[in-house]
């Protein structure tokens, strides 16, 4: 009996694990339904497909054995509370040197509020001081990459696909630098940018700024993919949904809009706050969004249903939000950083951890991937604090490898470029590819017809294009390009010259005619008509 129950329990656990890996699909195809299908071939293919997906899920569940590391959270004993444990205490009680080195402060008062970003493997860090200080470093081994002073405002910094390139939103334009701090590109199309984001799978640099234009630039080809007008004015809150590469923008009228480069209007518009939206964060599974506004609210949303899950009150307005890989929510407000655990699932009564950065204003917070570390950019520099249980303990080296060698980095760069996803594939549901178009037959037919007509018209236009070769001299071109109603000296001169030329041509033609009138002689063949001076 005991054995049996044990087995059943194990089975149950297995099932739980397997269900985690089964991919969702519309409708269900049980054995009963399969049996009802009369076409033998179809039935067998469906059976095969079902079996294959089931098999894949089971195997994936079995591979959980390989996930050796388990996340560890701070646990309080008795009436001790985790939020009372300061970084100082934590550092004192840490056993190993290495982890205690992860708690550090950089005192950089002269260059103002800092924004920061980690690479996708969490190895490198870039910081950008508002007053023009840019620095990169391998923060775990304390190796400085580059440090430059751009002598103008730096509003945001972001790593591109790896630690070789980073982008900085400066006073007027966005610049791209390489690992040595050498300016590679000046993106003139991105003007007065407040926030930048990088979509790693699409190689898209996204920016939004004072004018409220959302611009997508392909960093692999250099093409400006789209420019979208938000029509909602200045914007300085942006976050990407890592699951579907949708860009979320927070606006001053309290709305959060979801954008894809394929639509000129937002895909979704949510009224989240009554005051301006101050900060946004989305978790890496793409299910939850946290938003904070000037109305003193911190709201947690389910992005799939667009429903508000939790509603918290904040005394002072939140300046920055970040969600860690394991779902801890970091909130930066005033000089404080508060971290909430399981905030999306249940209403929390007390935070998980607290941190006070005295005498500063928090500018930007970012959880470091694959590390239990939270990076804080504030008005007095940069701080790094330990938040146990924030980072994913098991790394997937195919996805992001913190222990990457140079060779591996090169390999992964090539691979990621080969696997680059086109910007057209960015939709709310990224699994749409290959599915059946849900539009009605009539609509499809109509669209096809329109397309064909468009093609026809386009081709006609191309045919009718009148290309008069050789009659296009530089003077005429000049006149054509100039505005018609502006008449200046140069224009007049050119007009005169053109007139002269015309006259000369006319004369020449008349001369020729005169010549033609003469009876031709045998010696005519020796005359050079072109040498005639007119």
């Amino acid at each position, binding site marked *: 009996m005991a054995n049996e129950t044990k087995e059943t329990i194990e089975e149950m656990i297995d099932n739980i694990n397997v269900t985690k890996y089964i991919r969702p699909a519309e409708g269900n195809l049980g054995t009963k339904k399969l049996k009802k299908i009369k076409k033998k071939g179809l039935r067998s293919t469906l059976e095969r497909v079902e079996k294959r997906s089931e098999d894949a899920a089971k195997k994936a569940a079995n591979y959980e054995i390989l996930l050796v590391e388990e996340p560890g959270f701070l646990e309080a*004993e008795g009436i001790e509370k985790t*939020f009372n444990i300061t970084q100082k205490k934590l550092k004192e009680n840490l056993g190993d040197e290495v982890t205690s080195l992860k708690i550090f402060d950089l005192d950089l008062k002269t260059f103002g509020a800092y924004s920061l970003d980690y690479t996708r493997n969490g190895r490198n860090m870039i910081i950008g001081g508002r007053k023009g200080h840019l620095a990169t470093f391998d923060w775990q081994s304390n190796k400085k990459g580059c440090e430059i002073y751009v002598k103008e405002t730096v509003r945001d910094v972001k790593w591109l696909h790896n630690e070789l390139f980073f982008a900085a939103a400066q006073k007027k334009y966005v610049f791209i630098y390489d690992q040595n701090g050498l300016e590679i590109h000046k993106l003139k199309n991105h003007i007065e940018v407040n926030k930048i984001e990088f979509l790693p799978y699409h190689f898209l640099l996204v920016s939004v700024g004072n004018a409220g234009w959302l611009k997508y630039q392909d960093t692999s080809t250099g093409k400006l993919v789209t420019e979208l007008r938000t029509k909602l004015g200045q914007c300085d809150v942006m976050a990407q949904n890592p699951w579907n590469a949708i860009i979320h923008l927070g606006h001053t009228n309290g709305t959060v809009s979801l954008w894809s480069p394929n639509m000129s209007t937002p895909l979704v518009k*949510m*009224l989240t706050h009554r005051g301006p939206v101050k900060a946004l964060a989305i978790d890496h599974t793409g299910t939850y969004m946290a938003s904070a506004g000037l109305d003193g609210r911190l709201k947690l949303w389910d992005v799939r249903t667009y429903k508000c899950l939790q509603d918290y009150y904040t005394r002072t307005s939140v300046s920055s939000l970040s969600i860690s890989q394991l779902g801890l929510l970091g909130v930066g407000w005033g000089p404080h950083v508060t971290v909430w655990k399981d905030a999306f699932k249940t209403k929390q009564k007390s*935070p998980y951890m607290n941190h006070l950065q005295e005498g500063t204003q928090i500018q930007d917070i970012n959880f470091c991937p694959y590390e239990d570390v939270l990076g804080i950019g504030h008005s007095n520099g940069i701080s790094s604090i330990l938040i146990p249980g924030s980072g994913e303990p098991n790394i997937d080296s195919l996805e992001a490898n913190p222990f990457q060698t140079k060779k591996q980095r090169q390999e992964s760069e090539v691979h990621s470029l080969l696997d680059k996803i086109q910007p057209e594939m960015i939709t709310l549901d990224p699994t749409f590819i290959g599915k059946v178009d849900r539009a009605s037959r*009539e609509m499809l037919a109509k669209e096809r017809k329109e397309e064909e007509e468009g093609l026809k018209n386009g081709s006609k236009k191309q045919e009718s294009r009148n290309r008069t070769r050789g009659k296009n001299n530089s003077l005429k071109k000049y006149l054509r390009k100039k505005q018609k109603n502006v008449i200046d000296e140069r224009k007049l001169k050119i007009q005169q010259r053109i007139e002269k030329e015309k006259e000369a041509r006319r004369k020449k033609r008349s001369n020729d005619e005169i010549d033609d009138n003469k009876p031709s002689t045998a010696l005519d063949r020796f005359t050079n008509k072109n040498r005639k001076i007119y």
Partner: protein
Amino acid sequence: MSKNESSESSESSDDENKIDKLNSFISSLDTKRKRNNDNSLENRKKKRIQERTEAYEESEYNLTTRESGSSKKKVDYQDLLGAIQEETGFSGLKQKLASLESGGNKGSYKQPLPAPLPKRIQDKLNRQAAYEETKKDINKWEPIVMQNREAEHLKFPMNPVPHYQPTNNTLTGNFQPSTNLEKEVDTALIESGAKEKDIQKFEELQLSKLSVEEIIARQKELRRMRELMFREEIKAKRIAKIKSKTYRKIKRKEREKNKLSVEQFGDKETIKEEQMKLESARAQERMSLRHKNTSKWAKQTLKYGANDKSSQHAIAEQLKKHEELKRKIHDLNSDEDSDYESSSSLLSNNDGDQKEDKGMINTVKEKVFDELASFEMKTREEEEKVIPKGILGMKFMRDAIENERKINKGLIDDFVEELENENFSGSDNDDKNNNQEKQQKIKNDDNNNNNNNKIFNGRMKIGAKKKSNSDNSNNLNNLNNLDDSDDLDNLVIEKRPVIEVINSDSKKDDKKDDKKDLQSEQNKQNNDESQNKNNSNNNEENPWLQIDTTVTSKILNHKNNKRIKSSGENKSDKLISKTKKHQLKNQIKEDDVEIDVNKTFTIITTATTTQIVDNQDKVKESKKKKKKNVTSNNNTKIDKNLSDSNNENDETIKNFVHVKNSTAFSHRELVARAFANDNVVDEFVAEKQEIIQEDEPKEKDVTLPGWGSWIGKGVKQSKQKKKVVIKPLPGEGVEAKKRQDAKLDHVIINEKRIKKTKKYLSTDIPHPFETKEQYERSLRTPIGNEWNTREVFQKMITPRVITKMGCVIDPLNVPFQTTNDYADDDNED
């Protein structure tokens, strides 16, 4: 009739004369005519030759005998050969004719052979037949073809010949020397007798040299051993099966006796010691009541320490003890019980004899000293061993522990002194009392020790310990009760007794009598308090009640602090002040309740909620402080630091509060609204409405104005005039109710089609699938190795047909046996 006769006559005519022959011939002629007449009247009629009215043009082409009216009349072969019928001697010819006539062996001739079918049809028939045949032939391939078709992967060659891998043995076994060298070596081996076979033979011979006796003896020995082992095993099994408790008990006693007897070899003292040890262990168990789950400590740990491993462990231990004790009680015949009886009797005997009594006291003292020594050893060891981690590793905690330890040490020293002095004290009764008291104290000390031990196990709860002030006073009372009645069973000792109890007890032994009354009063109060506390604990869910508790506890703590400070004062004064404070506290409590009732003052209430946490923290802090005061005044610095850090935390908590109730923060919302753009929501709603209307399917009016209607003065537009309307296509536009955001007021979802993604969608459901669901289910599992395990990935990307390079792929073999049967079955069907 006449025919029969004639036939008879014809048969018999062979033997008769020629005259008869002639006669018969004549008669036969007659009968023939007669028979023709008999056959049918019609025939007779037909035979009547009609007159020819028309003359034929006689020619060689007009030979047919035609009779007018009957086209049937043709020359029959009977007409030609009819005469032969009667003739004899034509039997051979007749037979042939008969066979011809019937078209076979028997039966009558009906119709002539049909004309051969047209070639086209004939060929078709042939083809059909051939098809059937070939179908039968081909059917035998069906199963294997089906099998291959349904297979996920096909690997060619289909049935590869397994590669032969020769083993070492086969190689050596089949070895034949071929080259010259090999042959030489072989011969050399044979000559020296070093061949494998020879060596084997030699070894066998060597083995056989052992004498028969020796072998037999060895075998016997082995057999005996096996037998013995088997018997022992069976016996053990049988014994293990016995369920009788008495049997087990007897066994156990036997075992113990054996043990004692073994020790008896040493000396009697050791036995006594052993008994004493047992006795004291039992007493300790009973005193400490570790087995009971009703103590406050147990309750607290059960409540709060559910996640703490060490506390779980402690509780488990306790439960175990309890279980043991219960078993003892129920099992009347148990040896422990009898032991107890014997020991009690022993004690009574000792009571009777004073000398013995003194000796007993001495032993107890000795024991106490031993225990103290062992405890000291332990603590020293622990000091050396354990460098506590976590919070306990922090400096202030370590200091606190150190201080506590010092106090304990001091107490122990005092106690030892007292004990030593007691040797010179007066009456026996007092002695006895004192003794019991001392024992009690020892217990207390022990508990303290336990406490310390617990600290090292990481289960220290500074706050919780000090919270139980009422418990302490209870404890005190109990101690006093103890003085009145020497009943050991009534004694209740707290799990975590607090130092002050001992302090007061040890210092103010003489004043006990004076205080009794007051203390009983206080006891009552304390009971009330504890009741209140319990109530509040029960209603912990209610945040308002929580405030009460915290406030009270705060006050309590405050009170405690004061009490400790004024430890030098007269206790009676202290108690009076206590009662006063208690009253005050009650008043405060009532005030608090009033605030609760008035829920409209949300601001205040929320403020208080924020303070709850503060208060709790402060309570904790004050407790810590209190402790420090008790122990030493040196740690004030640390206290300061702590309080600073605590203030930080307080602040953070104060500033970050979650919204509990939407109505509770209505004022906040109002404020927020005042600062926010007022028309944000209205704008949003208006925008949504606009978009909804824009997206709705609309009819398009394309009537040409003025077309088909009269114009001029006085012409009225007819209402019946048809409008030309283009109706929206199905699927064009979205109705307001069917929108994705129909039920979400705060969301606008774009319903427009994204044209750029069209190229990634399929317009129709691909071939084998019938519904969208079926098709999309087939897509759901991604194939890449980023999403799959290696095994699954490999399986998914294997091509359907795999051919080995450079391999000849033979055509399918005919699977004879099974497939033939299969084909036959099919045909039968």
